[in-house]
């Protein structure tokens, strides 16, 4: 795709992100302030791109899975498994690289399991991945022995809280992974083939596309992204918390993909738009923390904002909103844009 087409595709997400940032900065005017301190950039936007890393990483894999008309509910549990694997390896003294390798392998194996259930046994993706979603935390607890498995390894902890040229490592991780996956699907024919099986699996198979292998690859990609997210989450708190690592993040990842304008019915997808979706969610999360409302309101505020965003992005609603606005202008009433009205 050319630059202009990409820009047109992600324009709604960019506008939404802008609107959300604007909203947060109303409550917290210092939002834009970024300073360089302790060899790293410090500021709220930096917190957003750092804290959003797990959901952003999950959203990359989730985008591809959803493009095949699937869904991967297990990514949160896979995060816990991979984080536990990494922490266990460090604890056993295998060293950094072995820990990363084992965690990545665990993610790929989890993805392979999901992929086999979906591609070879024909189980519906939501059911197939639900199995690991439920069982995965048990597996993670077996690895950690039911406790928060802490470790002392500065090199590994650097992946969660370190910074390169002032940029937090988790941020670099999702940006680089996003670029890597983006190139992988768009510089090869993978993207086209994935979209094809997502739109019409039967016709694609009759066209000679190896849909089974493709499905396996997509779920393994999702598992790998979950492994990266699990490594970062574990490194961040210097411990593997099997109960809570990645808990409910699969839902945020799906939400990020949806806010990114990707259809849950499969087909056309944009990883960039999903990543913007993840940043929109994180900006809302961080904004809620900064705003200082009582925590009882957290979920309500988030839900209301998400509903507004999704309604505004709804293809059915957009023409109607345009119509309403036109009519208002005709009636010469004080008119506001839909976004402002939504606030």
């Amino acid at each position: 795709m050319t630059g202009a087409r990409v820009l047109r595709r992600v324009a709604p997400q960019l506008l939404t992100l802008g609107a959300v940032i604007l909203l947060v900065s109303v409550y917290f005017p210092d939002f834009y302030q970024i300073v360089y301190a302790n060899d790293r950039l410090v500021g709220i936007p930096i917190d957003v791109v750092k804290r959003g890393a797990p959901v952003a990483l999950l959203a990359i894999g989730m985008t591809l899975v959803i493009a095949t008309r699937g869904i991967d509910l297990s990514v949160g549990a896979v995060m816990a498994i991979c984080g536990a694997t990494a922490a266990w390896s460090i604890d056993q003294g295998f060293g950094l690289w072995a820990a990363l390798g084992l965690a990545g392998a665990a993610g790929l194996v989890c993805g392979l399991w999901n992929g086999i259930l979906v591609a070879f046994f024909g189980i519906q993706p939501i059911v197939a991945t639900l199995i690991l979603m439920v069982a995965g935390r048990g597996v993670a607890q077996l690895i950690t022995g039911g406790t928060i498995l802490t470790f002392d390894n500065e090199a590994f902890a650097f992946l969660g809280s370190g910074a390169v040229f002032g940029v937090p490592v988790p941020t670099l991780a999702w940006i680089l992974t996003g670029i890597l996956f983006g190139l992988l699907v768009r510089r090869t024919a993978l993207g086209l083939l994935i979209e094809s099986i997502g739109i019409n699996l039967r016709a694609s198979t009759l066209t000679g596309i190896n849909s089974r292998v493709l499905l396996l690859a997509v779920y393994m990609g999702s598992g790998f992204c979950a492994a990266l997210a699990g490594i970062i989450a574990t490194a961040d708190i210097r411990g593997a918390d099997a109960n809570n690592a990645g808990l409910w993040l699969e839902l945020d990842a799906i939400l990020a993909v949806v806010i990114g304008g990707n259809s849950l019915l499969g087909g056309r997808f944009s990883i960039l738009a999903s990543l913007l979706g993840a940043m929109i969610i994180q900006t809302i999360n961080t904004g809620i923390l900064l705003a200082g409302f009582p925590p009882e309101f957290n979920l309500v505020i988030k839900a209301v904002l998400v509903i507004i965003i999704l309604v505004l992005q709804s293809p059915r609603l957009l023409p109607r909103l345009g119509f309403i606005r036109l009519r208002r202008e005709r009636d010469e009433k004080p008119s506001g844009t839909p976004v402002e009205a939504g606030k």
Partner: protein
Amino acid sequence: MLLSTRNLTKTFPGTKALDSVDFDLKAGEVHSLLGENGAGKSTLIKCLTGAYRRDSGDILFEGEPISPQSTLEAQEIGIGTVYQEVNLLPNLTVAENLTLGHQPRRFGMISPRAMQAQAEEMLAGYGVDVDVRRSLDTYSVAVQQIVAIARAVHLSGRVLILDEPTASLDSREVRMLFDVIGDLRKRGLGIIFISHFLDQVFEISDTLTVLRNGCHIATRPAAEVDRMELITLMLGHELDEEKPDRGLSSEVEGTGDAIRFKGIGRRGKIAPFDLTVHKGEVIGMAGLLGSGRTESAEVLFGATPADSGTVEDANGAVDLRNPRNAIAAGFAFAPEDRKTDGIIAELSVRENIILALQARRGWARPIPQAEQMRMADEYIERLDIRTPDAEKPVGLLSGGNQQKVILARWLATNPRFLILDEPTRGIDVGAHAEILRLIEDVVAQGMSILVISSELDELIAVSHRVIVVRDRHHVSELTGADVTTETIVRAIAAPDAEAVA
């Protein structure tokens, strides 16, 4: 008249599904509705039962105009329907299924005993021995059909529509069902029967109505029609019609390049058959709906892999375990149902055209963007695909243009053997002619083609020889001067041994 339609018309975008159809059903008759795929049978049924809203025309029930808005309303008027897949709830008991929605109540609660009694009463006279307390799925499909019929008769009681009720029954079960239908006829119900098994149609029907391309073709007493005449009516050719000019020489030199299929078949789909495909040859395949035409094509392409037989060419065995291997062997297949099996609707014309070639190259070797554009433009021009540009989603094109896109997709892979299943169905006349011309073009370049079509004229015009399929067997192969509508119809109709040599 019990149920009539007058000038019933229904259009869908791009096609006229029913064109001023008149239809009359008498009380106490079994009236079969016949026609090939797309003839308008199911549209007619759906208009009668309120599943579709008609565009114009009248439906008369005992002379009174009706317009049911839903199947429920049609049921209340007196028109009940039983489909091939029984529309009941298999995990409820027979009694619950029979009485669902009108269970006998006592003090507002369902009374199991009254419900059982009512269910047993409803099933009385159907000659089935059923414990109504057992769940429906413990019984065979035939019994489930009869339960569905009993329910429909109880609720409606005047008109019963049976849509392919025998498709999944064995012969003993068919007999059981026919006994029930015979009884209902005696009780004065009007029964509309749809089946593609002609033997059964002749056995049970009093009256036959043939539809073709949405038009009413003929209504005759069943006793006055013979098999050949019926098939001719369905396929749309008069026996005494002038032989169309065959534009192709009937001789193809038997080079060593032939692909030889020996005894390939698949149980339950198509009986083992032999087929030799020569270079530059067009083979036609004729047969009625459900005869095994499409199944033959799917076995040849590996879409449903053969469970018997071998395939060889000059280089040895050919692997047809799945479509991918078939494509690697130079095969291509444009399926009958373009929407579900052919196009990838949301992808662009360009992407649809390059898709098969890209799949064969593998994901790691993408076709460069410029090359994709060039190929798309080339085929859009060569096949005259009407699209504003190559980036338009193919689902937005008309049927004929979608078919051309699928042909382009396969031509781009430069296949040696191209299988076309009903390539001209549902497309306009102009595109029709263009596709036939295209077939001649590519054959001249040495490609081999298998064409499946219900339109005999078309088959005769393009084919060097014609294979006739009946009851899941390849029953006859016609070559040279034998390829005429008459010989084909006779081969399709022949109940058994009188097959044409």
